[in-house]
């Protein structure tokens, strides 16, 4: 099992900052969500993608996930090309992929480029099984599953066994919201029991850490060692805000 970081935890961080935060926390995987400050996008040039791949490789981030912005009718060719070039699995919601022949178009494009798809499903065994059937339509190793595990609701461990059984060996990633610095607040939600169950199953996938809600990003900022915590706030302040008298010399 390897832990990874979603850029949802640091949406304002550059790629280098995200990579450095992973190194500081001993994380070996990363999820880059399109639109965040890391800058990796379907519209990125090959040079920019190669530069990003090198930066991630230098940080030891061998397992990479790219989550494109949701769109109505995606052009799979550049997404698949980015997947192959960045060495990243492209994460898309499985229910969305199942609509209107999107999966067949995606499988075709990814088959040509050698990229990988990750089909995300919620904590619902039926949806996990549906995602697995979609993945089975692709070439071996071309598509795997990503469980989007939200600790809210019934205890995770109660939902885990049927979801894990339904997803089977295709489950390569789990996105765990409310972990990292929020773990203490997730007490009683079954994360400990879930981890024990995954261990005993010998699950060897990637666990991506993500915030539960964006309001908790300041806590993640400190946990990831970004910035210096509480400052005096004067670094960019105007000197006009500090006056020792009226009309006196500065």
């Amino acid at each position, binding site marked *: *099992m390897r*832990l990874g970081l979603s850029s949802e935890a640091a949406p304002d961080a550059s790629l280098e900052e995200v990579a450095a935060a992973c*190194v*500081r*926390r*001993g994380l070996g995987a990363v999820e880059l969500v399109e639109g965040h400050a890391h800058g990796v996008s379907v519209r990125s040039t090959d040079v920019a993608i190669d530069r990003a791949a090198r930066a991630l490789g230098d940080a030891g981030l061998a397992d990479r996930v790219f989550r494109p912005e949701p769109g109505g009718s995606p052009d799979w060719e550049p997404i698949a090309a980015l997947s192959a070039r960045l060495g990243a699995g492209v994460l898309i919601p499985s229910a969305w992929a199942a609509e209107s022949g999107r999966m067949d178009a995606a499988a075709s494009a990814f088959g040509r480029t050698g990229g990988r798809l990750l089909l995300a499903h919620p904590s619902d065994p039926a949806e996990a099984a549906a995602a697995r059937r979609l993945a089975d339509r692709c070439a071996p*190793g071309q598509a*795997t599953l990503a469980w989007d595990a939200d600790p809210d609701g019934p205890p995770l461990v109660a939902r885990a066994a049927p979801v894990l059984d339904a997803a089977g*060996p*295709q*489950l*390569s990633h789990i996105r*765990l919201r409310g*972990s*990292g610095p929020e*773990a*203490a*607040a*997730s*007490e*009683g*939600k079954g*994360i*400990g*029991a879930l*981890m*024990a169950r995954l*261990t*005993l*199953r*010998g*699950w*060897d*996938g990637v*666990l991506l*850490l993500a915030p539960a809600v964006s309001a908790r990003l300041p806590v993640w900022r400190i946990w990831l060692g970004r910035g210096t915590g509480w400052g005096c706030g004067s670094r960019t302040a105007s000197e006009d805000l500090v006056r020792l008298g009226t009309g006196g010399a500065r």
Partner: protein
Amino acid sequence: MTSSTPGRRELDVRVIPPREKHPAIFATFDALSAGESFVLVNDHDPFPLRYQFEAERPDGFEWQYLERGPVVWRVRIGRR
């Protein structure tokens, strides 16, 4: 990418709420058969846990450091 090989058993407690960590570790250990093991991953030296094992599972466990920080500690915990 995925496997169910028992030799790859790894329990990363960095994501587990503090009060659930030791119960999860002991639940994992207790589910092992004799001769099996798992690798505990933590962000600090888990030596207090070893004392707890010595107190609660005397002579029943093996403890081997695989990595000693400074960011990540890995300990193989086996059941005799």
